């Protein structure tokens, strides 16, 4: 929880200043940081690629319809140096997770950038400003 408090004070402006070298381009150039969304679902797949890992999150609505979001995040080397494996990021099969994200600016549906993932046991992986 201390960690969450440490991270919580950081705004997007820090991300704007700090991400580019490892993620190539502007997050605000692709994602609308003014419209954060909270998604709850299960992680169907993780594409462990550069320059951005993609987490595919299956979200079920009240009617039972499942929508899969493609959620980009940091590059693999940054994860590796932080000792986060693909398996750890993926969570347990079927595990319900909550993802704080920001959506694409170009109107592409179900595309976003991850701020943080909260897993079923309460632990958090903070990947960007919240």
């Amino acid at each position, binding site marked *: 929880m201390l*960690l969450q408090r440490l991270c919580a*004070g950081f705004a997007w402006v820090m991300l704007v200043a700090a*991400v580019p070298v490892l993620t190539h*381009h502007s997050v605000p150039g692709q994602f609308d940081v003014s419209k954060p969304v909270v998604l709850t679902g299960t992680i169907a797949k993780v594409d462990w690629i*550069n320059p951005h890992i993609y987490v595919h999150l299956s979200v079920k609505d009240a009617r039972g319809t499942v929508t899969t979001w493609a959620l980009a995040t940091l590059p693999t080397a940054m994860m590796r*140096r932080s000792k986060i494996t693909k398996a750890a990021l993926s969570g347990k099969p079927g595990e319900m997770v909550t993802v704080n994200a920001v959506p694409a600016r170009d109107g592409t549906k179900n595309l976003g950038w991850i701020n943080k993932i909260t897993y079923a046991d309460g632990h958090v992986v903070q990947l960007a400003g919240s």
Partner: protein
Amino acid sequence: MPTRLLLLTCPAAVAVLMLAGCGSAPPADPVAAAAAPGTRGSEEQLKALAARPTPHLADGRPDFNATWDHLGGIEFVRVRTEVAADGSVCVFGCAPPAGAPGGEGRGARRGGGPPPPMGPGTPTYKPEFLAKVKDLSDRQVQVDTNLQCAAPGVPRIGPPGKIIQNAREVVFLYDDVNGGFFRIIPTDGRPHPTDTEPSYLGDAVGRYEGDVLIVETRNLNEETWLTDNGAFHTADLKVTERFTRVGDTIRYEAVADDPAVLAEPWALRPLTLWVSDQELAEPARCEDRDLPHMVDGSFHSNPR
């Protein structure tokens, strides 16, 4: 990483292992480096590592054989990993560690939108080329091959993540986000080759002056930029890098000189590298899926 896996996954590893076998001194002790006091990359840790004896090979040259860390090299990129008792991890967006050098970063922008074409930490162009620089800068998302998984060029790629050294040459290895890259640098007096095509990382020769390894690179293709923001160069670009071993650290300096377009040689900000306990690994495949979704030309300025 098991040797077999290394051989299977990284073609350059074959040459590297051959070179490593020729080395005459053990590599620096990464475990000891990791145990140095202070947060990884903090001034306290770097000071302690620099105070150690500078290792040398049997022939007296400084020993650069090691994996080297610099946290990405850009002062405002300070990945911070803190693991809480419940397993929570903060990878990015964390508060800068106390005592960390330059946590806020010199020259880093604090706002969104396109940065000015040039500024602190960027090369100075002759007046007649400023319009071209601005045009390229405005279209960076569309034209910068570094955003398209190509090799970043020199000096944009930065210092290597691992150095393998023997009596004849030095090999630089990179686990770049764009891919795994290598540079083979003769240090036995061989001249620059005359039969190679211009390339992303050019060709280089090296020499020693005391505890300094000096690497001169040329024959770089014109696709690469010196840094962000339209910093193009010509085929006549020459880059001089200086690696000064100080204890278990390296002071890295680089100067890019392209007299046809630059008003003066461009000296990058020096970096300090330190012996790392984190071995390089084959980077994951680079596949950009984002550029088609960029709605404006905004990108980041990454002062070197």
